[in-house]
């Protein structure tokens, strides 16, 4: 073995790590500009003979052995690092929570007149509320679907395609709403047009927000919502337009900003080019998936999201119709029980953000654990992944407790400062909060387990769980609305959530028992 071969081996090792054989060595040598001529000057018949000696030398030389171990360790650590979700978990959570908080704030500001003016705008407020409630499941399903693997490709077309799917879903839902309003007098007949208009605008807002979030521009969604709120407030308070005009302008402004951000970002992400080279094509990672792939990946997620959102709303709808006689203030709801729902939703917001952020990083965590686990001991994956899941659950519960405490302080302070708030919040409010709060935490955990199942491409248990939970919640809520006090209807939600959480959690635990098989089964 000549000195030249030793040096060459070290160079090849630095570039390629452990060699798979003489063919790989020859390909690396040629990529270094070393061909037959150089091999002949080194006394070898050709580059293939030289490559074979390089492989032998790599197995023999201590320096080459150490070098290839270093390179292989680096390659593996690079793989593990590549699975890490972008940004820190706290930032990801904040990016999810802030737009939600912003939308709550916007709703509060925009509907302030309704709260203050009493029954003056009841018919319109009911129409708007129904439109908002109907648009939310569409948005929830759409946003979840955007996160599904393969749902979105790079480039403008990659953005337009899911947007088109969202538009189709919104149109179908809008037609269903129109049919429902035509068939039954849920709202005043004169307000049907207003309800459909709001449905369309809010759907546009959610779709645009979903696209922006999927493009990784969560903070721009916050800015869009804040901007839309500002537009509405300015039009309402300074220009003194009607509430509907101010709201519409605000919603459309926010949707326009979010959509512009999404499209601009998409144009910056170019479709991977088809190389003009002879080949040696580098790995492709993210070319646009065919439409059927997107649909196939999105269908279970949309089903889960829609059923899940309906599960959250079904008890509230039942609460509305549990009143006898119906309350004649805002949205025909019982304000005390509705306040309990709102309070609970605000309290678990932190937990939802934690769960969402953890779910975003879960797939990467699993892949990283898999890339650290020797094939001879796949069982080592289970405790590591279970620890990731436990950590996410622990943080979510902690966030929920902190949210409950903080929201309690805020509500007490608000009651002390505002007589209307003090009049609204009562004993039933506290009961609803106490019942719905834990249910919402379980719902967040069920959503996390759904993310686990989607990660392993086993979403069936998630869909079954959500649909079963919805069925149980609807049945229990209707029964309670008929036979018990209004606040007890919230227990129907809990019943549904427990069923959903149990089924989804069981599916997740079953997958995590043999994570290597599940990982391989992702296809």
């Amino acid at each position, binding site marked *: 073995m000549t000195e030249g071969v030793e040096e060459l081996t070290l160079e090849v090792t630095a570039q*390629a*790590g452990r060699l*798979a*054989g003489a*063919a*790989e060595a*020859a*390909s*690396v040598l*040629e*990529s*270094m*500009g070393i*061909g*037959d*001529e*150089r091999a002949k*000057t080194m006394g070898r018949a050709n580059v*293939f003979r030289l490559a074979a000696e390089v492989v032998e030398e790599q197995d023999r030389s201590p320096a080459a052995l150490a070098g290839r*171990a270093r390179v*292989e*360790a680096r*390659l*593996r650590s690079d*793989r593990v690092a590549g699975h890490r979700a972008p940004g820190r978990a706290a930032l990801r959570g904040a990016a999810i929570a802030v737009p939600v908080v912003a939308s709550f704030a916007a709703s509060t500001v925009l509907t302030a007149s309704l709260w203050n003016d009493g029954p003056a705008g009841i018919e319109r407020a009911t129409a708007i509320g129904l439109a908002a409630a109907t648009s939310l499941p569409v948005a929830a399903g759409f946003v979840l679907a955007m996160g599904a693997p393969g749902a979105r*490709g790079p480039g403008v077309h990659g953005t337009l395609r899911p947007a088109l799917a969202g538009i189709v879903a919104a149109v179908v839902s809008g037609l269903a709403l129109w049919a429902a309003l035509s068939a039954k007098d849920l709202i005043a007949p004169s307000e049907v047009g207003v309800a459909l208009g709001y449905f369309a605008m809010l759907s546009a807002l959610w779709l645009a927000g979903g696209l922006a979030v999927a493009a990784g521009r969560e903070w721009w969604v916050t800015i869009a919502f804040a901007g839309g709120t500002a537009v509405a407030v300015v039009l309402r308070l300074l220009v003194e337009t009607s509430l509907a005009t101010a709201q519409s302008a605000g919603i459309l402004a926010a949707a326009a900003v979010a959509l512009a951000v999404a499209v601009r970002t998409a*144009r*910056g992400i170019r479709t991977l*080019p*088809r*190389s*003009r*080279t*002879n*080949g*040696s*094509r*580098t*790995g*492709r*990672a*993210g*070319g646009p*998936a*065919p439409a059927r*792939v997107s649909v*196939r990946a999105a269908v279970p997620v949309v089903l889960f999201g829609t059923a899940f959102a309906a599960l959250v709303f079904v008890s509230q709808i039942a609460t509305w119709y549990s009143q006898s006689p119906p309350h004649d203030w805002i949205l025909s709801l019982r304000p005390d029980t509705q306040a309990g729902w709102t309070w609970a939703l605000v309290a678990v917001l932190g937990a939802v953000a934690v769960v969402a952020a953890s779910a975003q990083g879960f797939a990467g965590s699993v892949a990283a654990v898999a*890339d*650290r*686990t*020797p*094939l*001879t001991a796949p069982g080592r994956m289970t405790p590591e992944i279970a620890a990731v899941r436990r950590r996410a659950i622990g943080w979510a519960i902690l966030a929920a407790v902190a949210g409950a405490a903080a929201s309690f302080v805020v509500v007490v302070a608000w009651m002390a400062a505002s007589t209307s708030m003090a009049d609204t919040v009562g004993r039933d409010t506290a009961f609803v909060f106490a019942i719905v709060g834990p249910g919402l935490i379980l719902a967040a955990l069920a959503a996390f387990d759904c993310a686990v199942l989607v990660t392993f491409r086993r979403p069936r248990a998630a869909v079954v769980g959500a649909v079963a939970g919805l069925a149980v919640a609807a049945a229990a809520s209707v029964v309670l609305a008929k036979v018990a006090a209004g606040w007890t209807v919230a227990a129907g939600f809990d019943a549904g959530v427990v069923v959903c959480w149990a089924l989804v959690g069981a599916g997740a635990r079953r997958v995590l028992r*043999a994570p*290597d*098989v599940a*990982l*391989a089964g*992702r*296809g």
Partner: protein
Amino acid sequence: MRARESPAQPAPHAPSTRPLVLLTTEEGLSGEPGCLANSLVRGLADVDFVVWSLGAVPAVLRGRNLPGNVVRTISQPSWNDLAGEPPRGNGRATRRRSRPSPREVERTFVPLLRTFLETTIDPAGPGERLAAALLDLRDAFRRWEPGATWRSPGAWDVVRDHLLVRTPDAGRPDVDPDGDRAEAWSADELPTVGEAAQALRWLGRLLAPLTVEVPWADLVHATAAGCSAIPGILAKVERGTPLILSEHGVAPRDRYLALRSMGTPFHLKRFVGDVSGALARTTYRLADRMTPASRYSMRWELAYGAARGNIEVVPPGVDDERFRPVAVPRSERPTVVQIAPVDAEHDPETLLSVAEIVRREIPDVMFVHFGEVVDQSLWERVRRLRGERGLEETVRFAGPVADVPRALALGDVALVTSRSETLPPPVLEAATCAVAVVATDTGGVREALNGGGIVAPVGNAAALADAVAATLRISPEQRDRARLGAREQAVSRFGLRRFLDDYRAQYAALGIELAPAREPAGAATDEVIRVPEAEEVIAAEPTADAPAETADEAPADAEATLETDVEVPPADSETGPEDESAAADEGVRDDVTDERAGEPSAGGGRAAAEAAMVVDRWLDVWKRVPEPSPAAEEPAGAAADQPDVPGHPVEATAAADPEAAAPEKIGARDASVPGGGDEAASERPADLRSRLADPDPLVRAEALRDLNDPSATDAAGRAMADDAPQVRLEAARALGRLNGPRAGRLLTEALSADPSREVRIEAVDALAALLARRRPDRTGGSP
């Protein structure tokens, strides 16, 4: 990964006299996506094609101008397309398939998969055995839904066990009883669960062609010995359908390079390498004909066990109607053009280094890069380096280009800095567009240039810069003449008509009789790269900085234009048959540059100096390529006064006037050359022998200098073995001058084996002169 099929399918091949060819292409292995498929489908209009593409769809299948002779298309994702779903097969077949039960997988599929994987690592596996294993797997996928089958725990167990068998654990004495270090693996070296899972995913995609029924065809034409060759293997062993393989690159080699660029760990790399290597070996063994694009590729095929008798090099075809000199508004600044994607393989950092060095000598030089950004991090680094080196005004990145000929026409030189390519398309395209080429010595570049450009060591910026600067230094007139000479050679060697004729002959040899060749109608008119919108020039590039992306939007100071009405008659400047066979027999490539220019071992300075010397000599050679019309009209004696051809008047005249290439006329013209003449021509053989036997090397050299009789080639050939370098140098000159029967072979040997650098360089000159003489008659000769 369900296969997409053309809307027109099913389109059964109607019983007719038209032959049906199944053409398979594979992204990353078939050369520029679909280039060969494009040329074949559009050029062979009397053949019906079923085109089966893996990965990027060939240009011929894109857009609305699908040729009428494409009766069906099948496309499947690339093996490493992460966005794709697991293989599902094609439409009608999928509906007949069922999800396998765990028991079915365990009892039937698992043994088949295990057999296949064992065959890939068994030295005796590739060939009939592997083909049989593929057939068995294909039968399994006829019954069962492929995605569900691959996702089954049984498939995972097989792949996991396979990887573990390949890596006996150091802690398992039963596996490693002898404690042989090379056979035992520490815990840190074992494959991981993640790698095994990816291996399973990739295996499913590599074997995706098994999920689609192979259409009946008269011939299978595979353009890569990768996964896309699987249909050809199946058709060959099951139906006896002839298989022809036309590789642009080399499948196993390109696969390894792709894996390396993806940062693939060892076990995954070896797994994919095993499967790819076995598929390639099987294809090479079963193929009836193999037509690699270059002898460089042929070497690899031979190394992988291909039978030499089945191989014939068929260079790629370049559409010389589309790729031709065009007039564009030109900058007055000396301009170097590069067309390449921004990725590590094409080494844009060396482009910056070359620009920095050339700028020291030619301050107003401009480098214009066209190409898309593939590696974003590299692109950012390149931009930062450009700023740090103050090259903003010298190097400009113009983004993707649609009109390649016009982009090339912007430059005086086309630069190729690729680190590893088999046959870069820009080399052939630039030569065909009559743009001087400076390229790295990678793959088949030397072979392709064949003296029509300059090669330098890979990554050696100094050598490349010397070559670029030297090319820019010569006068525009001289450069134009050199360019046209290069185009003439490129057209003759890589023209589309020659390409189609070659494949007609190949098809005929396999029983596909075709009508006589016709002029290809609109061949390859579809541009492979999309036309960028104005605002789509690389987003990250400062707008003010970016030059025009097409020639229409050239820099404002552009004034000079290239001639567009240049008549370049087709000609063949290839080495003569005897030289060709000699070079092939001895494994010596017939490129005529100094081989040592391509050696990085010489070190930067020495290599650069040698490269520069070769460059200078080559530029001299180029200068001697005559302008066709004026030179042809010159009186015979005037050639001797050409300032560009000192000491070599014959070559210029002979090349300019085909009539002069005849030996008898050469002798007549040499009579007017000082130092030659009638006296030498009439020298008696006895005198010559005595002078050549003189102990004084100066006398021997003088005798060789006076040689003018072609029949004295043998004497000059013997003198090539003389101990004195100056005698060998004169002998080389004489061989180039005499144009004798063995001159080409003797000179080829000299340029590759002579110990004296001066002699080797002279051999280069002489061989070039020989080539110029051997150009066929443009008026009546056939190429």
